[in-house]
């Protein structure tokens, strides 16, 4: 199978760093933002930011021709 482009993989890794590997940086209660402890605020924020990263990855894949070529193959 054709591997995804490097740029798309980069945007895929951003959420992994943000919500998984960096846990010891944000797993705390203060500062409280919008009434939420900081760890909750951070993870909820990334529920909203992850689609943006994936959208960027989608654009990159499209430009790399990985999406268009597949469409041609299936129709």
């Amino acid at each position, binding site marked *: 199978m054709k591997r995804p482009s490097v740029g798309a993989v980069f945007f*895929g890794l951003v959420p992994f760093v943000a919500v998984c590997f960096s846990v010891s940086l944000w797993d705390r209660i203060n500062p409280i933002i919008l009434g939420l402890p900081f760890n909750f605020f951070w993870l909820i924020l990334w529920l909203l930011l992850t689609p943006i990263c994936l959208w960027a990855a989608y654009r990159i894949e499209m430009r790399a021709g990985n999406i268009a070529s597949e469409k041609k193959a299936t129709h």
Partner: protein
Amino acid sequence: MTPSLIALSVIAGIVVVASVVGFYAGTRHRMDLEQWTVGGRGFGLLLVWLLMAGEVYTTFTFLGASGWAYSRGGPALYILAYMPLAYVLSFFILPPIWEVGRKYRLQTQADFFQLRYGSKALSAFVALVGVVFIIPYLQLQLVGLGIIVEVSSFGGIHRAPAMIIAFAIVAAFVFTSGVRGVAWVSVIKDFLLLFAAVFIGIAVPYMYFGGIGKMFAAVIHARPTHLVMPGTTKNLGHTWYISTVLLTSLGFYMWPQAFGSSFTAKSGDTLRRNAVVMPLYGITMPLMLFVGFGALLVLPNLANGDLSLLTIVRKTFPAWFLGLVGGAGALTAMVPAAIQILTAATLFAKNLWRPLFAPQMSDQQVATLARITVLAITAIALVFAVYSSLTIVSLLLLGYAGVTQFFPGIVLGLFSRRVRGPAVFSGIVAGISTVTLLMLTQRDPWMGWNAGFAALCLNFAVVAAVSLVQRTRPTEDANVFATKASAI
């Protein structure tokens, strides 16, 4: 009418309406094996989205997440993290899996292994491991159904008889409708669940504390360490968090039923666009955790955290509303359970029984055997559910520890031309044995690490080592799937 009768009648009404929809959707199509398992491969963005959401948002979301927020605290945060990461992964792996599936008409996960590695034994083994580790997931749905009926009847009906009734309905439902009926019942279930989750998640903090912020302030005041890791546990710290988030996000689409659901899509791009928007649907997850924290202060002495959501609903709202929430919860258990049973039965009949014991069986006979298997698998999960006392989240993590061992074989199978069957086979054997050993000797977490993740690391190491020893060369054909196509 007594409150328990009102609540139970509303639940029964919801289940009956949903079942009629499922039967009707199923009987409009002629049921061959292809239609029963992958819906004729014609689902567009909306149906795929519903089907995937249907199996993702399960009893685990509804009762398990609030249960862990109540009983464990901080470690429950892993639930908010793994889900968006699982969709990130699906963005990259589901479109190529779909493409292979369509080209070679694959129906199950084990078919994929058969095609890529050309080994009947490996494919049968993958089917066996898949069926075995789907059972705790099924069991979890049963436990959830039991809790719903138990709480809604105000303790009048015990869990075991409730589970037996509920699963008779699920098995009957799977028998007649197949995957298409399940997808349409998902529609009803998603609307109900979304409504219930948003309403309860906001109303409970407001009614008892005056707002979500005020509720958190009260929790921080009463239990200062509850909201950060390791919460109320001793050994679920940051190492456990990282390893569990990785295990569950990598494993999300390794569930045979989730893997198989990608075959129902019309195009690979449907799956990719689906992945971009799916994390937004996770916005209901924090609300479930909020309910658990609210319950912690309002009802501090529950024996089992998994009871917290329904018990606080029962205490706060009228009986008909408890029935509505219970009905949503019942569908939330039935829909994924139906998909799981359907997958496990097909795996058993098509990839385990036919190739090993009865190669002359026709597709029609396989479909019949799959339906008989439905009953057997349901019965096994029922027995476990009656006799086990694990929490809902613990059951799910047990299943993940098993199915994530497929990850190296699938991802390397897609993107590496070097990896071969023996390496993948040895890796899965090493992974599954490690998981079994660590779990049975009560060593999960192991040195702070999630046992399933430790096993996955070993699995990868074994695949790499065997590949090195065998000195495999990359296949000459760039399409690694082309050479073995005749084997399916």
